[in-house]
């Protein structure tokens, strides 16, 4: 491993520029970058590769460390949150300290935003890489800080996702605390009626999981309880839970799985006639009504139901300018993914119970994805459900005539004919909206997508991982999913949390403040400026035989914000990995040309 005491001439920088398929190289001139960077001071080698993150790309770096004595690495590629860890691991495998590396983002912050100016993009990339070289030259080897981890996971939300995550975590020998705000576990599956694809009663699924949970000594359940604060960090989260009786429990957890689910979409008054008539129902309400209705005829509130219309995408796949905005001023652009299948599954259930009821289905697209769900559509056709396809930018009109509900729509399937049909009941295929969890996402500082669901670090490369170390999400808190998909994501979250907690201590990034004791005068300004009491204190130390007052940083308590750095007139306190002098050197490189 290299050490802090290398002189400038001994620092050998390798620069690795990624094409990212064509994502970067279609805009920036990679050859020009490599040519110019290879001439830059301290750079011993500059290479490019089609996918730097692939195992071949990583091997380029590893081989150069081993064969050419490269001891400082700059990778210019996509955003660091995707592959910083990949490259750190590769560097470590080759025997170099993994922090002797700087990552420059030339995809999200160069090629993708300067498509119209390839020359400008190339020049910018070159300057940023040079700035990266300057930074890494001043980088010291660092060692991860190891903190003891609580062998316990907090699961927020006791729907099917939370329950699955709890059972899987306990199967891995990890203690579980579930906090559910409602009286019972089960979430949206605490309802009457059946579910696809297993054709089971929703509550039967809930009961199966509840039994496992309530009989497992490793799992503690809080129902009708609320989380009122979360502090701490990975391995050591501090959680305050307010119970039904008003008492507060404090618990500690090493990791957290957010499984707060979704809210049912509620149409505004009058949206497709909702609340204008008792016979306009949301899908959820209709499923429950149907499961309670028996006999030879379908009767609701004294009226015999001979015909029912279904309308897809209510509250989902909305368009600005066509649909009314939600409370935040935006429309729900996403597809709720379950309402097509659940709706058609429910039409089949209706036809099995009351074969004489005529069913008309107005859709934009049918998204009954998955092998088993596709057959539901075929069965519906055999049941004589009549399908009408509306244009994407048009909405069916609903009017009321006597006790009839009139649907008017354009039908693409009959060559854009305007059609009118009268029905006795109308069912709106309402989907999902993100649940209101500003409190939880606020305590944990979680990222949300533009659709307001929680956002994973990367849906393909790092699914279920949140932007905060040690926090995972499962099920419909992430995006609309059916039960099968929710269970899968919950299982993934439980496994990732179990892997994290499998060691008694967790490595933390070493990006905390450090004190140069020789320079420090013990003035205490940093202590006053620090945001966290106890993170930096003044102590007495014997240095060269003399007792001296100096600042001392507690690395487990320092959050690495750097507030202290700004106020030290001696430049005696600095941030590991983000030294003030490193940024100054970067700026010098940026202004140089």
């Amino acid at each position, binding site marked *: 491993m290299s050490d802090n005491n290398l002189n400038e001439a001994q620092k050998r920088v390798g620069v690795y520029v990624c094409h990212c398929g064509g994502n970067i190289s279609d805009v920036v001139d990679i050859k020009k970058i490599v040519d110019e960077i290879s001439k830059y001071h301290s750079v011993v080698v500059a290479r490019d590769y089609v996918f730097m993150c692939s195992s071949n790309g990583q091997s380029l770096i590893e081989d150069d460390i081993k064969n050419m004595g490269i001891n400082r690495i700059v990778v210019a590629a996509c*955003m*660091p*949150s995707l592959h910083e860890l990949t490259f750190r691991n590769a560097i470590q495998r080759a025997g170099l300290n993994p922090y002797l590396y700087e990552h420059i*983002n030339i*995809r*999200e*912050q*160069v090629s*993708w*935003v*300067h*498509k*119209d*100016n390839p*020359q*400008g*993009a190339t*020049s*910018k990339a070159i*300057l*940023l890489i040079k*700035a990266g070289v300057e930074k890494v030259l001043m980088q010291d080897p660092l060692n991860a800080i190891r903190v003891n981890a609580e062998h316990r996971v907090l699961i927020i939300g006791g729907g099917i996702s939370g329950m699955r995550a709890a059972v899987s975590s306990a199967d891995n020998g990890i203690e579980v605390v579930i906090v559910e705000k409602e009286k019972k576990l089960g979430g949206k599956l605490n309802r009457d009626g059946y579910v696809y694809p297993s054709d089971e009663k929703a509550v039967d699924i809930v009961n199966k999981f509840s039994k496992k949970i309530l009989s497992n000594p490793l799992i503690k359940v809080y129902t009708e309880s609320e989380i009122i604060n979360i502090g701490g960090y990975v391995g050591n989260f501090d959680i305050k839970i307010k119970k039904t009786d008003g008492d507060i429990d404090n618990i500690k957890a090493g990791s957290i799985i957010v499984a707060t689910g979704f809210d049912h979409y509620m149409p505004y008054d009058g949206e497709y006639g909702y609340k204008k008539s008792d016979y306009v129902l949301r899908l959820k309400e209709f499923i429950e009504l149907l499961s309670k209705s028996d006999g030879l005829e379908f009767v609701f509130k004294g009226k015999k139901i001979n015909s029912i219309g279904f309308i897809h995408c209510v509250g989902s796949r909305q368009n600005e300018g066509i649909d009314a905005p939600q409370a935040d001023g935006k429309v729900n652009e996403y597809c709720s993914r379950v309402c097509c299948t659940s709706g058609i599954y429910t039409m089949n259930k209706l036809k099995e119970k009351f074969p004489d009821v005529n069913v008309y289905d107005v859709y934009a697209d049918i998204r009954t994805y998955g092998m088993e769900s596709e057959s539901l559509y075929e069965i519906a056709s055999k049941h004589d459900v009549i399908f009408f396809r509306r244009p994407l930018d048009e909405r069916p009109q609903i009017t009321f005539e006597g006790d009839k509900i009139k649907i008017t729509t354009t039908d693409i399937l009959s060559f854009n004919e305007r059609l009118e049909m009268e029905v006795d009941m109308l069912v709106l295929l309402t989907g999902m909206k993100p649940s209101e969890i500003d409190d939880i996402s606020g305590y944990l*500082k979680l*990222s*949300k*997508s*533009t659709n307001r669901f929680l*956002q994973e670090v990367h849906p393909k490369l790092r699914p279920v991982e949140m*932007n905060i170390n040690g926090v995972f999400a499962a099920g419909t808190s992430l995006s609309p999913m059916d039960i099968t998909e929710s269970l899968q994501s919950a299982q993934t979250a439980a496994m990732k949390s179990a892997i994290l907690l499998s060691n008694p201590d967790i490595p933390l990034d070493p*990006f905390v403040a450090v004190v140069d004791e020789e320079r420090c005068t013990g003035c205490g300004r940093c202590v006053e*400026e620090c*945001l966290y009491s106890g993170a930096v204190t003044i102590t007495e130390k014997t240095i060269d035989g003399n007792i001296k007052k100096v600042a001392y940083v507690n690395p487990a308590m320092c*959050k*690495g*914000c*750097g*507030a202290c*750095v*700004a*106020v030290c007139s001696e430049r005696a306190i600095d*941030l590991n990995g*983000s030294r*003030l002098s490193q*940024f*100054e050197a*970067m*700026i*010098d490189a*940026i*202004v140089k*040309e």
Partner: protein
Amino acid sequence: MQQNNKSKILIIATNHSSYPGANAVGQAHISYPSNTYIIRVPDPVMFPEDFYINSFKKGISGIIIMSSGSDCPYEGAYKRLSKRIENVYIKMKELNISTERLRLTTICTVCREAFIKEISDMERIVSK
């Protein structure tokens, strides 16, 4: 190089908030001028007042500090930062550097429009 004579804008972006915000702009493939240089920091609260003055003296034309605002994981950092920037403005006035060239703002992980607006405002100022 064509860029040589162009004024350079330094963007100070935070790990937690505005740096991912800048990535969100990239993911949406929204274009902005290429004389913009983003440096990634834990929090701009780490920079002493002289850091800004020196950057201007070195040749940076405009600085946009994209702080995390209410999303900031370091409670109290913004208050300290804005106090610091007030002092920088005083120094800038003393040195006859237009205070418009330093902008303190907050950008969240999905604030794409605000990010673009800050850049186009600063472009206008530095091209004056």
